[in-house]
């Protein structure tokens, strides 16, 4: 039985929702695979080595980087799922903050102190030790570890995820009709 681990880094969980979008085929999938670390079963750490790692999102804080490296260590195949995992998606837009010497500070100030509609009388930017430190910019998964497959889409359709996952689980070659591939 193959073992799958999934994680959402700097993503919106849309790709996980799309994974649930395979509908009744999830019963077939669960006959073939066992889910290890995943937000779907709320397991927070690996119980052993996995065959397939399903990565959603890119790296925007140090915890993301540590998690991604852990996945690379524990998984035979890493699959980057969705535009965020491939090219950064929406989080990567903060890399394009222009006209600033401190783009990260400007980004945080916009969010927590002087952005439109922000009510924050203390004027403080959250800085609790429990919060993972933000990175200077958003790093793509491919800049941190090696990925074995990427599935484009925002999110990829349930059908596309099913085609790829079932091929990987059954060790078959992947054949994707081009109409199934969407980048948004």
């Amino acid at each position: 039985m193959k073992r799958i681990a999934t994680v959402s880094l700097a993503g919106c969980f849309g790709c996980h929702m799309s994974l649930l979008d395979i509908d009744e085929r999830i019963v077939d999938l669960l006959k073939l695979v066992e889910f290890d670390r995943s937000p779907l079963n709320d397991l927070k750490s690996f119980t052993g080595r996995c065959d397939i790692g399903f990565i959603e999102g890119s790296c925007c804080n140090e915890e993301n980087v540590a998690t991604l490296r852990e996945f690379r260590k524990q998984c035979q195949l890493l699959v980057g799922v969705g535009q965020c995992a491939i090219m950064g998606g929406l989080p990567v837009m903060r890399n394009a903050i222009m006209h600033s010497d401190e783009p990260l500070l400007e980004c945080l100030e916009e969010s927590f102190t002087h952005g439109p509609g922000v009510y924050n009388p203390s004027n403080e930017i959250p800085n609790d030790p429990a919060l993972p430190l933000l990175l200077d910019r958003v790093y793509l998964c491919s800049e941190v570890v090696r990925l074995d497959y990427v599935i484009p889409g925002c999110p990829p359709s349930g059908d596309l995820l099913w085609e790829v996952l079932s091929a990987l689980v059954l060790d078959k070659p992947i054949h994707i009709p081009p109409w199934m591939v969407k980048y948004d």
Partner: protein
Amino acid sequence: MARHEAFDGGEETRQRITFTIDGEKITAFAGQSILEAADAAGIYIPRLCDVEGLDPQGSCRVCTVKVNSRPVASCVHPVSADDVVENDTEEIRRWRRDLIKMLLHEGNHLCPICEASGRCELQAMAARFETLEPDLYPYLQPVRPVDASHPDIMLDTNRCIRCGRCIRASRDVDRKYVFGYIGRGIHKRVGVNATDLAHTRIDLDDAAASLETCPVGCIIRKRVGFFAPIGRRQFDLQAPGDEIEKRKGEGK
């Protein structure tokens, strides 16, 4: 006006020749480009910088084919008698995929936030050649200017692929010379002939500002964003080249 009227000298006197694409026999007029002859015969050769109604430029190289084993850009290469052309082979598909991936990596092509998503030729082409293998090129993530000065038209040069279609449309169709290339090599970009777009003579009726001209989301019309819902956008309904492939078998 036919593109190559200068070469062929009129419909009647044009010499007919034959050549093959992937083993299929094609009849063409002498002086026609390979791409034009293939289009007429209903064989689609993928392309980005070439569009019907504008002179071919041969800059994107996505239409690369092998003629007698040598790679050429089919939009600018005139056909000669008995040429053996390879179009849809594994090797050429890989070249095209790499070219498109490099264009995607060079700019900021954030499809989920782009207004042109679903009618973007670069996106449709990338989907056509998608293999789900990660590519090894780095994402350059450039920070290029956005010009929103014009009341009706906006330029987001982060998405420009420098195909030159707006340049040719503005020069040859509108005769306004609004756009032009600046710089060389990796620094080459498309500029406007004034301090910003608001000070140029461009307006909404120009060919350069039409939806067909910009293959990506660089030239955007204001206030009509996301006019087609997902599922009814241009390339949701048909892939680029479907129209050309439909011609196959007609007129023979």
